[in-house]
């Protein structure tokens, strides 16, 4: 013990940092901030440390070459002792880091911590969110599989829509004319050198400002921020009702960080690493690329936006969003901090959370994507074929062979791109069915050129059998009147 003490003294006589470290550690923080609500920033930092360590461990094996990356991931998963676990830690660590950064941001927003004098801390925080998402995206590329390959294609297609310089941005992003070796190499450089460098620099500035300006006090309704008095009031608060950060507040950060690390390890152990999915061979087109979890909402938005809105939304949306976040502390730099007095702030968070949650959930089953093998893989349920005429069964065959099932579901199985057809004749008359099949419309292709008249007749005959028992099919009322006959009810089932 004496030896350690004297070694410490010897070092500090030369480094002379002990005093300032002690001062920083023991700086007083408002008592109520020693709270479980204030642990997310430090947790994000700890997960970042885990990402650095596991990232270096992966770099010992990983080969950033388009021809070899996928094989080296297989080696990591299967041939290196616990390589799969390190990949799992890094992959799950990435998801946890994005999640914790988002939670931290929500907490900071709801607690009004971005207000004077912490505007710059917030702005650097916005940059930290962006570089964290940048790490997530570039990391997804390094897992160089089919999803990564086509994900890059999507990124390039979005970038190409920038007016005038779009194609140049694509070449710059890909490092050449196509997604290939140069693309992976530059994403490796970004993921391993450039973006982490930015991340470390931003974290340093962010932390420095937290130390210099103090941790945001617990917001109380009625305790209003004014530029003239805030700093004096804050110092008063920490003097009269403050506790030293170490050990007064830090133990909660430490417990939470340990819990998060353990959760990441548990996920890595239980669920294993992410992929890689199929090899990045662009001639294998039997693939349905999906983005990683935190980009699923974007995948949904890109599917649901009207085509004409898409390019403006893609190019202007992010700019508006980021600018909004950056100017937030300048527009609302003073005033109430408490969420109890800021209903619009609370509603904004709820709206964003519900929107992102809905889009993410939608993207989970992607109803807009055709089920590419439904026509050959999902049979028509028995009850739809039972007691049907030969013509109607022939129509069911047309339904399968012409891939109708890829976009339309029967009995909740099959594609969800178009409407379910379980009860379609209740909605459409015989003539409307024929017209819809032949001419398409309403986001359905026209099948006129690919169906013979006999096939169309059979298909529509089959579709007309699909109405549920007891519900009569749609009919054209004007026809009966025009012909002076009774409405035709012969197509109703006898039961």
């Amino acid at each position, binding site marked *: 013990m004496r030896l350690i003490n004297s070694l410490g003294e010897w070092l500090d006589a030369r480094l002379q940092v002990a005093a300032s470290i002690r001062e920083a550690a023991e700086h007083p923080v408002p008592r109520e901030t020693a709270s479980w609500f204030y642990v997310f920033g430090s947790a994000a930092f700890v997960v970042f440390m885990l990402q650095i360590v596991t990232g270096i461990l992966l770099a010992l094996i990983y080969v950033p*070459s*388009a*021809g070899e990356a996928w094989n080296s991931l297989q080696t990591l998963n299967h041939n290196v002792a616990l390589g799969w676990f390190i990949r799992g830690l890094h992959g799950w660590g990435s998801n946890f880091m994005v999640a914790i950064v988002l939670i931290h941001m929500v907490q900071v927003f709801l607690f009004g911590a971005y207000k004077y004098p912490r505007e710059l801390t917030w702005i650097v925080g916005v940059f930290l969110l962006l570089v964290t998402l940048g790490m997530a995206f570039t990391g997804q590329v390094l897992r160089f599989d089919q999803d990564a390959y*086509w994900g890059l*294609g*999507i990124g*390039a*297609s*979005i*970038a*190409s*829509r920038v007016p005038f310089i*779009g*194609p*140049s941005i*694509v*070449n*710059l992003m*890909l*490092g*050449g*004319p*196509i*997604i*290939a*070796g*140069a*693309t992976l190499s530059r994403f490796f450089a970004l993921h391993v050198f450039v973006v982490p460098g930015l991340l470390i620099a931003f974290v340093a500035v962010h932390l420095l400002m937290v130390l210099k300006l103090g941790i945001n006090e617990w917001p109380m309704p009625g305790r209003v921020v004014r530029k003239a008095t805030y700093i004096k009031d804050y110092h008063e608060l920490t003097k009269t009702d403050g506790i030293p950060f170490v050990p007064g507040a830090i133990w909660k950060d430490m417990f939470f960080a340990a819990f998060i690390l353990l959760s990441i390890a548990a996920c890595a152990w239980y669920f294993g690493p992410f992929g890689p999915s199929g090899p*990045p*061979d*662009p*001639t294998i*087109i*039997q*693939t*349905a*690329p999906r983005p990683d979890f935190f980009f699923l909402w974007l995948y949904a938005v*890109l*599917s649901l*936006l009207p*085509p004409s809105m*898409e390019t403006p939304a893609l190019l202007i949306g992010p700019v508006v969003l980021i600018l909004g976040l950056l100017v937030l502390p300048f527009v609302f730099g003073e005033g109430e901090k408490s969420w109890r007095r800021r209903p619009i702030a609370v509603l904004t968070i709820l709206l964003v959370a519900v929107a992102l949650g809905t889009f993410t959930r939608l993207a989970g089953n992607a109803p*807009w*994507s*055709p089920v*590419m093998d439904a*026509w050959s893989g999902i049979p028509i349920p028995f009850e739809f074929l039972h007691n049907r005429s030969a013509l109607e069964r022939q129509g069911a065959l047309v339904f399968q*062979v*012409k*891939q*109708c099932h890829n*976009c339309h579901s029967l009995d909740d199985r099959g594609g969800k*791109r178009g409407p379910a057809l379980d009860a379609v004749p209740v909605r459409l008359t015989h003539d409307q069915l024929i017209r819809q099949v032949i001419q*398409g419309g309403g*986001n*359905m*292709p*026209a099948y006129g*050129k*690919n169906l013979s008249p006999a096939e169309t007749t059979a298909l529509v005959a089959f579709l007309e059998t699909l109405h549920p028992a007891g519900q009569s099919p749609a009919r054209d009322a004007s026809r009966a009147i025009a012909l002076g006959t009774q409405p035709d009810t012969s197509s109703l089932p006898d039961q």
Partner: protein
Amino acid sequence: MTEPRDISRRDLFMKTAMFVNGVVGFILAVPILRYLLSPVSRERKPGYESWIPLGDLKQFPSGETRLATYRNPVVNPWDGDTADIACWVRNVGGQTFQVFAINCAHLGCPVRWFPQSGLFLCPCHGGAYYQDGSRASGPPERGLFQYDYRIESGKLLIKAGEMPTPGQASNIVREIRTCV
């Protein structure tokens, strides 16, 4: 600091050193920028595209649409499989062809051909195209990208080499006529 108007010796050296570093910085910045921008500046005049054989005409029977693959002309040894590019070849009849890029005109996912229904379907966001490549439905704003082709001594050649994206000038101009 004797006379306020005089530049002292150390001030002069300081300013000269800053100037020298500025010049050196500029001298270094030019090659660094040229290096960084090399994928855009394209040292080779004709750009990335060149004529590539897809195979014998016999491989593409009349009235059918077949998948063809080619090795990208701009290639490095470590590109692996990524330099193998697929495309759809439609023999309209006789010597008339249409060669479509594999990439959906929406966001570049690989479209699949369904001969039974005569449609190209995209697995990502559900874009659909008719057999002539024109837009049928879904989020794409236009038809499939097409490669220029020519026939030489019984072989089909296409002009390719760059991944087609919606923003490329050549792709904006060449709008495919809409079907139906």
